[in-house]
């Protein structure tokens, strides 16, 4: 839920999501995230991608599930803010 991202995401964080609504970019900007990874092959439309370019948010996409992507990031040493 994006309301949870707004409230709790750490600055500079990476959001892994299946949500492709334009508000994902707005919330990422507000929470000062570094990047968004769209999971499960979800691809945002042109308006969303253009907004990300405008706001300087890096977008990535993967066919893998959010679970697998987060697991791999964790393996690579990415940790939450309280660890």
């Amino acid at each position, binding site marked *: 839920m994006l309301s949870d991202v*707004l409230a709790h995401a750490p600055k500079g964080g990476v959001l892994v999501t299946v949500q492709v609504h334009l508000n994902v970019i707005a919330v990422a900007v507000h929470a000062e995230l570094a990047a968004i990874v769209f999971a499960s092959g979800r691809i945002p439309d042109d308006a969303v991608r253009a907004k990300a370019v405008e706001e300087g948010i890096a977008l990535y996409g993967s066919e893998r599930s959010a679970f697998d992507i987060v697991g791999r990031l964790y393996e690579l040493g990415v940790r939450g803010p309280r660890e």
Partner: protein
Amino acid sequence: MKAFAADLHVHTGLSPCAAEEMTPPAIVQAAVERGLAMIAICDHNAAGNARATIEAARRAAGFSPGGATRARGASGVKLTVIAGMEITTAEEVHVVGLFPGVGAAEAAAEEVRATLPDGDEAYTRRFGGQRVMDADGRVVAEEPKMLAAASGLDLSAAVALVKKHGGVAVAAHVNRRSFSVFSQLGLFPADAGFDALEVFTPCLAAAQPAADGPSGRADVRELRKLGLPMVASSDSHFLADIGRARSVFEMEAPTFEELVLALRGVGGRRVTHA
């Protein structure tokens, strides 16, 4: 101008999460007993019981199915039933569509239905039955699609679908923590095209702002800044909840057309929350 109490978000037993007691005649009786002049039937991703509820209301008011007035009706009290639907968008935002007629609601529901996954026995066991009923409350069919699932329509497509069928789009229970525009999308998209906001609270006038910040619940003062009319509705899944939240529409007659004018504030019509 007259005042009409309305509860524009009531589920029937077609919604898997609603109680079996939510039959068309029982809903009509509860609404009339609680002094409502209008209700809207809004099942999840479906409109299959709207027609039966409209018919149940007609019978309760003393009209025969053909439209001829009987000498004396069961209660003699007229209840207007609006045909609606609560669409779950792909983002899992709930959008209430209220339609000008039952045919429009059914046509819109057919389009939503085409995007829903098929249910199975395990689904029915976990989520509950999905009962299509007649005006007497008899179950005539079980809906096989997963009404509890997200539809394939994203928010803008869902709002566009409602409008295509002549309806008004209401952002459902915006002050709840789940399935609301705020909980799912964080911020309210200004260009979403909503005609009104639905607030889930017994009395808007007395609503207290949420004290816990950006938690998915928007406080009423913040909601007012969106400049959209607000309606209070019960989102009833049980008979006891019908009318527990309501708005008062000051307008000429209890019709869909007048309701739209009241939401827009045309000609002195308005929505109040006494």
